[in-house]
């Protein structure tokens, strides 16, 4: 009963500036798909367009697969498609407790049994109910990102939009969060659409990926292709080489 997501010829224009142009991809139900590129390439804008935070100038966004497929912008869509933002220092309300942060989406979507759902969500991200009445400033970066993931999961979504979920975290904490995401996807059959500038992180979590530059598609390839260095465009090659570190000429 899981759903995937399809984007066809998406174009996003802000005040005459074309942020995303003619971008299409298909994420099958249960698949994990990555969007890679440098700042300004339009990768985050695609996620924002999907969940209604950026204007869709042209093109189409739709859920695919069996089961309910509500239209973008509808309440049903907003429940099934949830986003986790990059910076857990900025994406949690500093004056709200974890309990309130997690109760809010439940109230918006009029879901019952809040008590049990909050406890379960905390358990699921490996924090336990001891964290329920803390404020964000009392948590470490990794713990905050777990809260952000719990806030997305509490609505029982099918598609998670992950916008650089680990780039603000230390390497050791990044590994923990990546493992958590991996496990949640397996357990719940989630579909991931993940944005990152780190090729290694994307290939670790995703089966296929799309490389973007300047709002346009450079190429689509599978993680195995990338791992085996079977890439076509010179831009992807530059990115790949850059990710291995500095080399003295």
């Amino acid at each position, binding site marked *: 009963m899981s759903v995937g997501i399809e984007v066809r010829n998406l174009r996003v224009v802000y005040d005459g500036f074309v942020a995303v142009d003619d971008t299409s991809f298909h994420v099958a139900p249960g698949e994990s798909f990555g969007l890679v590129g*440098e*700042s300004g390439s339009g990768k985050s804008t695609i996620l924002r367009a999907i969940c209604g935070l950026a204007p869709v100038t042209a093109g189409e966004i739709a859920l695919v697969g069996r089961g309910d497929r509500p239209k973008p912008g509808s309440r049903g869509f907003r429940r099934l498609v949830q986003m986790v933002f990059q910076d857990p220092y900025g994406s949690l309300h500093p004056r709200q407790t974890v309990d309130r942060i997690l109760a809010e989406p439940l109230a918006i979507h009029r879901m019952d049994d809040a008590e049990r759902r909050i406890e379960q969500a905390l358990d699921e991200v490996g924090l336990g109910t001891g964290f329920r009445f803390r404020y964000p400033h009392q948590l470490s*970066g990794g713990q905050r990102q777990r809260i952000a993931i719990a806030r997305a999961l509490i609505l029982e979504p099918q598609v998670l939009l992950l916008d650089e979920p680990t780039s603000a975290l*230390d*390497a*050791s904490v*990044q*590994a*923990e969060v*990546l*493992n958590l995401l*991996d*496990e949640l996807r397996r357990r719940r059959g989630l579909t991931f659409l993940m944005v990152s*500038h*780190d*090729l*290694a*992180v994307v*290939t*670790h979590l995703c089966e296929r990926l799309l490389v973007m530059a300047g709002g346009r598609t450079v190429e689509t390839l599978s993680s195995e292709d*990338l*791992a*085996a*260095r079977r890439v076509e465009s010179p831009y992807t090659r*530059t*990115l*790949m080489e*850059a*990710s*291995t*570190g*500095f*080399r*003295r*000429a």
Partner: protein
Amino acid sequence: MSPLLVVDDLRVAFPNREGALVEAVRGVSFELGRERLGVVGESGSGKSQTGRAILGLTPPQGRVTAKRLAFDGIDLLTCPPRVRRDLRGGRIGMVLQDPKYSLNPVMTIGAQIVETLHAHERVSRREARERALAMLAAVQIDRPERVYGLYPHEVSGGMGQRAMIAMMLVADPDLLIADEPTSALDVTVQLEVLRILDRLVADRGMGLIFISHDLRLVSSFCDRVLVMYAGRVVEEIAAGELSRAQHPYTQGLLSCLPRLGESRHPLPVLQRDPAWAL
């Protein structure tokens, strides 16, 4: 030849809410010649506070102590503030992480470079301008005259970071402390900035302290690396010997990174041993 910088048993402590002192840096010792030294650690490991203590940029409530903290024979802890001020930005420069926050938003890039020069040398206006332009050209900015008159918000991150490097190098320092100089930049821009930094450091024979959280980047850039954990140096390794790291923390840090062409599910997670922090 005596070393450029001697750090012996450096400690930086901050008062907590009860007034008791908490040590962020707990006895760091190293010597630096004209070489590239990497300092690696996670957030809270004390790597930035070490760099700031050398420059004298510890916040006023912090307390810095050391058996010896000396730059080119000058004892930094006992020398008068005036000497310290002359060193800061003059013979010791510092490049900070994010050009968006560390450049002055209401001064043009050129004016900021000239300001550094005027603070440390007596130069005519015309000479200052010429040297600033030459410095901008040295960090491979295409049209220095244009960038000279731009404000920080008008340039990209990579350009801003190059401007900051220019600002720090214009006074021709002997030691450059770079605190996460490329962490806010895209990977390809990151390499470009590193290449410029590398060449300038080599050409001018400076000492460099490169502070970063990225163990692999640091080891590919520096001659040797200090690995910090909980305010202490847990391991010192020559950059080429990284794969032979002895300390379990260093090994853990290396193995928890996802790598291209390797499928490890789940990733090994760093098991922190409380004994490391003792």
